[in-house]
């Protein structure tokens, strides 16, 4: 059974700026994805219907094996759905992975600049934009370093700058802070808030950390596992700036966790 989850208009800072039209809207309609064939077939996603309005920060949460990453790959166009329809309405899509996936032969600045080059920008503009983007992620002065000379958090900052360099309408994030320590993650949450707040950027953020989802999202969507289905959707009416350990965040996170537990125990029985 599929529970239809309709998008709710979210009162949010990001709906205020000039987010006209549907550019940046992501829509999945009854999307299923099956890997393999016959008896070894594994159903990763089962008739997922999801509508993300432009400029919304949506967090997808679920136990491992719920097809969260598959969902992002479908939106990115890296994979095709078995059935159903995925539409990003002509939006440009950028992707951030759990690993920074920086090119080790390029410097931090070189990595950012390559994304600008792929967009066909001229040399002078590339140089200027690279400097701006590194400043945005607070890495001015680190542009000449190679990825292996940076800490894990700094590498993800470079990856974020590179994603922003793509000037995308939709940013897909697959547990980008999963491998970082709590302190660094906390700072990057603030940074992400600040950076996304100033842009009309639709974000789909996958995580298995409920608090992180509530801390960051305008909306939190809970997926069941094997196969992934949308089982619940929570609006997050908490004002920004938020803190991961504030009472409202903790309260909503507890609700979401209860829902997840319920789902998992049903799954286990």
């Amino acid at each position, binding site marked *: 059974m599929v529970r239809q989850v309709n998008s709710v208009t979210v009162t949010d800072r990001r709906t205020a700026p000039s987010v006209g039209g549907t550019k940046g809207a992501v829509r999945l309609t009854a999307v299923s994805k099956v890997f393999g064939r016959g008896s070894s077939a594994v159903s990763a996603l089962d008739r997922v219907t999801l509508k993300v309005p432009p400029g919304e920060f949506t967090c997808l949460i679920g136990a491992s094996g719920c097809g969260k990453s598959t969902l992002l790959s479908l939106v990115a166009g890296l994979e095709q759905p078995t059935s159903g329809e995925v539409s990003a309405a002509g939006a440009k899509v*950028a992707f951030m992975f759990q690993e920074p996936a920086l090119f*080790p032969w390029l410097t931090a600045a070189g990595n950012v600049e390559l994304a600008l080059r792929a967009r066909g920008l001229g040399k002078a503009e590339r140089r200027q934009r690279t400097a701006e983007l590194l400043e945005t992620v607070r890495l001015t002065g680190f542009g000449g370093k*190679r990825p*292996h000379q940076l800490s894990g958090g700094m590498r993800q900052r470079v990856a974020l700058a590179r994603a922003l360099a793509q000037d995308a309408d939709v940013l897909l994030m697959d547990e980008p802070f999963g491998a970082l320590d709590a302190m660094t993650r906390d*700072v990057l949450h*603030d940074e992400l808030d600040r950076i996304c707040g100033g842009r009309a950027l639709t974000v789909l953020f996958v995580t298995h950390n409920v608090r992180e989802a509530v801390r960051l999202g305008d909306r939190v969507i809970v997926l069941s596992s094997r196969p992934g289905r949308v089982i619940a959707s929570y609006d997050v009416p908490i004002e920004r700036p938020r803190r991961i350990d504030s009472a409202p965040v903790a309260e909503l996170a507890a609700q979401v966790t209860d829902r997840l537990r319920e789902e998992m125990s049903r799954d286990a029985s």
Partner: protein
Amino acid sequence: MPANLPPHVEANVPGYVEKLTYLESLEAPSDRGKRRLAARVWSGLWPVGLAIVIVLAVWQLIHLSGWKSQIFPGPGATLSNLWHQLQTGLLWHAIGVTAERAVLGFGLSVLIGALIGAVVSRIKPLRAAVGSLITGLQTLPSIAWFPFAIILFGISTTAILFVIILGSAPSIANGLIAGVDYTPPLLLKAGKMMGLRRLSLYRYLILPASLPAFVAGLKQGWAFAWRSLMAGELLVIIANQPSLGVLLSTDQDQSDMASATAIIIVILILGVIVDQLFGLADGAIRRRWGLAGENS
């Protein structure tokens, strides 16, 4: 360290993020890999020096034991023979001829190997077929090609170059194909999401990513080229072109063991020098990519 900065208390204090960025940067790996040049050179040299001492000692002991002492000179006589030959134009001329063939043969191998590698790695069905062909060529000792080459090209430099290319180009092609094949899938994903397509994907992602494997292929290709060249110079002796192989062959005819051994030492040193150059290139890439450990 970060413990004195409770994140939720100070999160809104100006300068907090800068502070943390700074602390984070302290955690970044330092450049300790950049050891002093002298130390690096020394750590590379002493094993070589020790090896030379061991060889010379064993050699001298054999000489002192009197085994075949009539025809087998000790290190002293051999090294003085080498020293004298180094004063003559003939040895240098021979080194020049051999080096020229090595450069030409290896250069052609790189061109042909890289071309084949680039084409094959782009066309999937070709890859399986050409892959096994390349493996086959690599297992075939290249010296077996000489009768074929001599019948085809006569006693000529072309015959030697032909065999060098057959011996060396497969390894180089193989290195490039392996590099392209092993481009990390995550980087490919990242590159595609960035909008790199076809040619630009090759130029900015796949080729740089395959560089370490390509250099490994070059190194192996060089080893094959050098072997093929030496075999060729012993088998294909061209008049008025004194190469190292010709000198060695003349020494054999004249039973001049001191000179023969001296030439072998020259061949060994030349081979080692080029091998070291590839080693340096490999080390430079590894350091640049952050693959190297503390000791390399």
